Each structure stands twice: as structure tokens, then as C-alpha cells.
């Protein structure tokens, strides 16, 4: 299976945590927590709550460590648990999740670019109009920072198909924002 060096390192750490090296979790936390924190902060829009859910996510990762299969990438496994913890938090707080991705979810670098395109509300609306499959790929790649291979594994499609979806999603987003500005889907 093809994997990025980062992913290889994460897999090795997770396998080593399963095997009995407790310290591996410190390294895993250092590598994975920022992405999870960004994901949670974007959704909850409350840093303190996001921090609580981040800790809950790592607690659940610890409890669910047996379910991680070293043959697969680590990040989709972590993000699925983080998403579950986020939904649990919403349920506990008696709130319903927002149906659409909002602008706060977007990675700072993307957000800076988005500011140049249009107001935040326009971006939110435009993202809402991108077909769901393409939006998932755009968000997973540009917001969560997952590789196309990892996205493919999570969505049950080939990495090349994930890249194509992301690319089409970005193109659609640009069209919706009414800009002819170029740029590759990196």
C-alpha cells in the first residue's frame, strides 16, 4: 500500500502503542493533535470546548486502540473518532450539528485565499452548493490535510478518484465565487 512518510511514521507509532510502548502516544499526540484541534475548533467555534473534545478524542483513541488496523492510514481512523466525539458533544449540549460546512472550518491558508475571493458568507454558500462528494474531498484535503490516498481509503474510492473529486470541487467553488482566478488543486 502506498503511503506518505508522515503516514508511515503515524502507523509505526500507533502500532508501537498497541504493542505496549506507552510513550508512542506522546509522539502521536504531537503529530495528530493540531489537525484534530483545527477540525474541532472549526466545528465548535469555541476553543475551550474544542480542547475538551480533543482530550475526549484521545481518550477514546486509547480505548479503541485495538480497532486500529496497521494496514490502513491512521488519520482517517483518528478523524472518524474525533467526528464521533464532536457529535457526542453536540448531543450532550442538546444542539444539532450545522448541516453545512462553515467558513470557520477552513484551514487558515485557505481562509486567507477565501478572503480574497469573497465575504465569508459567500464562501459558505458556495461550499454548500458544491456536490457532496466533491465537498468531502475538498474539505478532507484542504481542511484536514489528508492525502488523496487517505481520503480514498476513507470514502471507499481510489486515491486518483479522490483527487479528481477534490479538483472538480475546487473548480466548482471558483466558478461559484465568480472568479476566473487560476491555480492548481494542490
Amino acid at each position, binding site marked *: 500500500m502506498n503511503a506518505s512518510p*508522515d503516514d508511515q511514521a503515524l502507523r509505526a507509532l500507533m*502500532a508501537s502503542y*498497541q*504493542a*505496549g510502548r*506507552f510513550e508512542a*502516544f*506522546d509522539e502521536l*499526540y*504531537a*503529530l495528530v*493533535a*493540531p*489537525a484534530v*484541534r483545527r477540525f474541532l475548533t472549526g466545528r465548535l467555534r469555541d476553543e475551550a470546548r474544542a480542547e475538551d473534545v480533543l*482530550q475526549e478524542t*484521545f*481518550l*477514546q483513541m*486509547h*480505548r*479503541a*486502540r*485495538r*480497532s*486500529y*488496523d*496497521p494496514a*490502513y*492510514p491512521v488519520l*482517517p*481512523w*483518528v*478523524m*472518524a*473518532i474525533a*467526528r*464521533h466525539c464532536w457529535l*457526542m458533544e453536540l448531543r450532550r449540549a442538546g444542539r444539532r450539528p450545522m448541516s453545512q460546512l462553515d467558513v470557520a472550518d477552513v484551514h487558515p491558508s485557505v481562509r486567507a485565499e477565501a478572503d480574497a475571493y469573497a465575504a465569508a458568507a459567500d464562501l459558505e454558500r458556495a461550499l454548500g452548493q458544491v456536490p457532496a462528494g466533491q465537498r468531502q474531498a475538498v474539505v478532507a484535503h484542504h481542511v484536514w*490535510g489528508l492525502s488523496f490516498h487517505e481520503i480514498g*481509503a*476513507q*470514502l*471507499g474510492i481510489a486515491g486518483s478518484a479522490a483527487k479528481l473529486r477534490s479538483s472538480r470541487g475546487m473548480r466548482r467553488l471558483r466558478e461559484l465565487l465568480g472568479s476566473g482566478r487560476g491555480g492548481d488543486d494542490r
Partner: protein
Amino acid sequence: MTEGIDTHLPAALRARLAADYAAVRPLPHPLARALVLAPFALLALVAAPWWFELRVDMVRLGWAQAWGWSLVQSIAGVVLVAAALREAVPGRAWTRMPLALWLTVPVALVGVVTFTTYGASPIAVRNGWAIVGAMCFAGSLATALPGTVLAAVLAARAYPTRPALTGLLGGLGAGLMADAGWRLFCHFSEPAHVLSAHLGGVLAAGLCGAALARRLHTRRL
């Protein structure tokens, strides 16, 4: 990746994790885990015909229409449980299309088996339609319950992020296994009876699985 923010595992969390830390073995492949239910599938296949009797039209149906379809149902049940166990692994949950396919399998399979069997040996329920229906429904469901519980417990050993869906798949799988045996006893092939009572039992097992898996997951959190 770190962006200058705190990347140290908080001390309180670290202490909490260390308190119950032990090495673990990764769970085997979902299909391998689903094979744990193979003895149950075999038992369910022979239980009803052994306890009561084989259906009266066995000869007319022939081996393929009787035992053959039941074996197909049993195998489909094990595969459905494997699908449930894969669904229980974070990050490996089924997307919408395959999920719709998995949920269609029990209905489609029982439908095909029903109409094929009815074509070969049409036997209608003449008296006591409701009583016969209730007996087959209860029988299928009761036979499925041990498998449903086992599938839910196996799923809970992973970390189902959609526990109800996981339990539903597992329950439907166990239901198919149970009905595979029950249809070898019940000779009424009338589609109205089979699709309401027998398929009803399979679907009810799915609902029981969903409720149980959800309960188990809630207790774990």
C-alpha cells in the same frame, strides 16, 4: 503540522491513560471475526428442521431449492455480519451506496428465495393465517437473537461510530442465518406469509441488533 500550539499530551490525560494501559492485539479482519458466528449459522440451519421436522415438500423442491437456498442465506448472513464488523472500525465505515446495497441484501435475497420456492412448490396458508404467521415470526426472531447479541458484542469490541447502523447490519445477518433454518421447517411458500412473517422476523432481528449495539456503545462511553 504543529503550528506553534501546544503539542504535549496533557498531564491529567496522560495519567488517566497510563492507569489502564496495556498492550493489545489489533482486531483480526472483519470477515475472520464474523466467522465466529459460523457455528451459530450451522446450528440455526439445522435447529428448526431437527427440533420439529423437515418441510413436507422437500422432495418436490429438491436439494438446491431447499438446502441450497438455505446455505446461500446462511453465507449471506455471515457476510452481512462481516460488513457490520467493518462498519464498527473507525474510518472504515461504509459510504452511502455500499451501505444501501448491504441493507438491500436481506430483503432481495428473501424475496428471490420466496418467489423461486413458491414457483417450484406453491403452498398457501389455508387456516389460521395469523397464528402461523405469528409462530414463524416469533420462531425466526427467537432463533436470530443469540446471533444478534453475539454480533453486537463483537462490534462493540471495535469502536462503532454509528452503533445503531452496525447493530442493524449484524442483526439482519443473524436474522438471515436463523431464517435459513426456519424455512426448512415451514412449508408454506405463499409470498404473503413468507414476506410478512419470515422477512418480518429478519427485520425485527435487525432492529433488536440496532437497539442493543446502541445500548452497548452508550454504556461504554
